[in-house]
């Protein structure tokens, strides 16, 4: 099997700060699985539970397995959902638990949307916790590639909010 070491390093770099417990990468008959933390005894192997996905044209060929915190209540086992992260994108996660707002006020235009160009200090969203508004900035110059959280929904500490494709400084 032919593994491109540089590609692998880039992958690990990208995942370094992401919130995940297992990462699977498939390309032809090449398969890479990265796990974080101990394997839990009562968890079935994730590979058998996740359906096979076709390579995605234009998008990154990998998927980030992320616990779907914000969706329906989960019993006993965390449900894995696929969050598609565009190639080379930088992930912006929530610095705190709160309610996710993409607009300064209801009815106003969103701070950013997919395709918006942002600077490092551009406000992406507001996280409200007990009536206190906390803005989250991009932290990097780039283009918003994806919005991962739902307007008005609860986001948790460390939850993925945005993907940003970096632009040269």
């Amino acid at each position: 099997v032919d593994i491109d070491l540089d590609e692998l390093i880039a992958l690990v770099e990208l995942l370094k700060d992401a919130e995940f417990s297992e990462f699977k990468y498939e390309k032809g008959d090449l398969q890479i699985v990265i796990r974080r933390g101990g394997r839990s005894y009562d968890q079935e192997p994730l590979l058998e539970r996740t359906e096979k996905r076709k390579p995605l044209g234009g998008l990154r060929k990998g998927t980030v397995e992320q616990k779907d915190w914000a969706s329906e209540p989960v019993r006993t086992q965390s449900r894995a959902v696929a969050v598609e992260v565009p190639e080379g994108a930088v992930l912006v996660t929530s610095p705190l638990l709160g309610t996710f707002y993409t607009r300064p006020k209801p009815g106003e235009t969103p701070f950013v949307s997919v395709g918006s160009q942002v600077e490092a200090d551009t406000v992406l969203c507001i996280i409200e916790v007990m009536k206190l508004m906390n803005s989250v900035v991009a932290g990097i110059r780039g283009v918003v590639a994806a919005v991962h959280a739902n307007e008005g929904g609860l986001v948790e500490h460390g939850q993925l909010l945005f993907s940003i494709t970096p632009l040269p400084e």
Partner: protein
Amino acid sequence: MTTQEKIFVANRGEIAMRIIEACDRLGFDTVLGVSSADTTSLPARRAGRTVVLGGPRAAESYLNVKAVMHAAIETGCTAIHPGYGFLSERADFAQLCVEQRMIFIGPRAEQLAALGDKLNARELAKTLGVPVSPGGPTRSAAEAQSLAREIGFPVLVKAAHGGGGRGMKLVFEEKDLAAAWNLASSEAAASFGDGTVFIERFVEAAKHVEVQVLGDERGNRIHLGERECSLQFRYQKILEEAPCAALSPEVRERLHNYAVRIADALDYLSLGTVEFLYDVARDEVFFLEVNPRVQVEHPVTEAVTGVDLVRSQILVAFGEELELRQGDVAADGHAIEARLTAQDPSNGLRPSPGLLTRWRPPTSGGVRWDTHMFEHYMFPPYYDALMAKIIAHGPDRPSAMARLRLALDRLQIAGPPTTRPLLRRLLDEPELVDNTVTTRWLENELAWKTKQ
């Protein structure tokens, strides 16, 4: 009560497991708030849903009042169970729950405030005719001198406000008192903004005895007998048992009456523990303080009374009437709990977090394990060292001890050093077998053994 309640569990570890289990049996949904270090913990898997409150440091997560409240509201919870430690005794948090129409599973905010001030609680006990340890607050060294003469040396000299053993001095002779008083007073002024110093009789041989109380909103209040927690190391309890075998029936009844008297005076709601010191030499009891929450050692009371304390605590918080009356409560046999912790006994009980590579608790009669351990659990370094509570119940004290010994012997465990060898050795010590242990016994014993 509506049938579908949803409880927010604002804690971690074994007590989160205990609360979730009680909710599961009541048919209540649970949401667990965790730190980012606890997302793969056993309670995180058991809870109906888990939300990440913040970073690993407790201040960012388990003590983060805003995040806890926001998460509880947004996940549709109707009540919050704070467990022990963390937010459990915070009057401001209980008050915030009232403002947010959230049920706080614990006493009312004003009760927490009244009991949080130790001097205030002591004054309350005094007015009710409950004996307190001889002593009191002093505002000058001269005042301390005359008080110490009255109560007799040795005396403990400590800051009146605040706590945690900070600035506490033991004075054996009158000539040393003034210097100790001045030091304690300046430390108290610097740390707590109040230079008042508390002088208290030092009891050489004391047993720690505490009475479990439980009250509902309709004014029904009962006690569930007492526990003894004399085996301590630096004020940290290691073994707890129920009942306290050292008490005469007369002293035991007096203790229970004192505890209920204090609970009645406060119109106490929920679970609480009234702590006393039993002076073995003088055969006297003194009120210490009230712990307004579920205690770590509650299972020994559950074992001997058959009452599910956490279930009762949840139900009375929802306004349910206590099913039990005092006449229904009786003690059956004897129960002992050992606290297994991730601490290294060969290294001054230094904390020893790390990967638990083997964990196989044995199955044996009369033994209950309250634990969040599992094989390959990464014991995190951020929180307290408690791994498991092993509760053995038998018809009498020797049989409970025998069951506890067997349970410890048969536990298969590997990974970081734990207190298992220490616990096991303690259970063979003659002082423990004879139940003559007092609160400072272990410290003296360890100090002596180290010197040898």
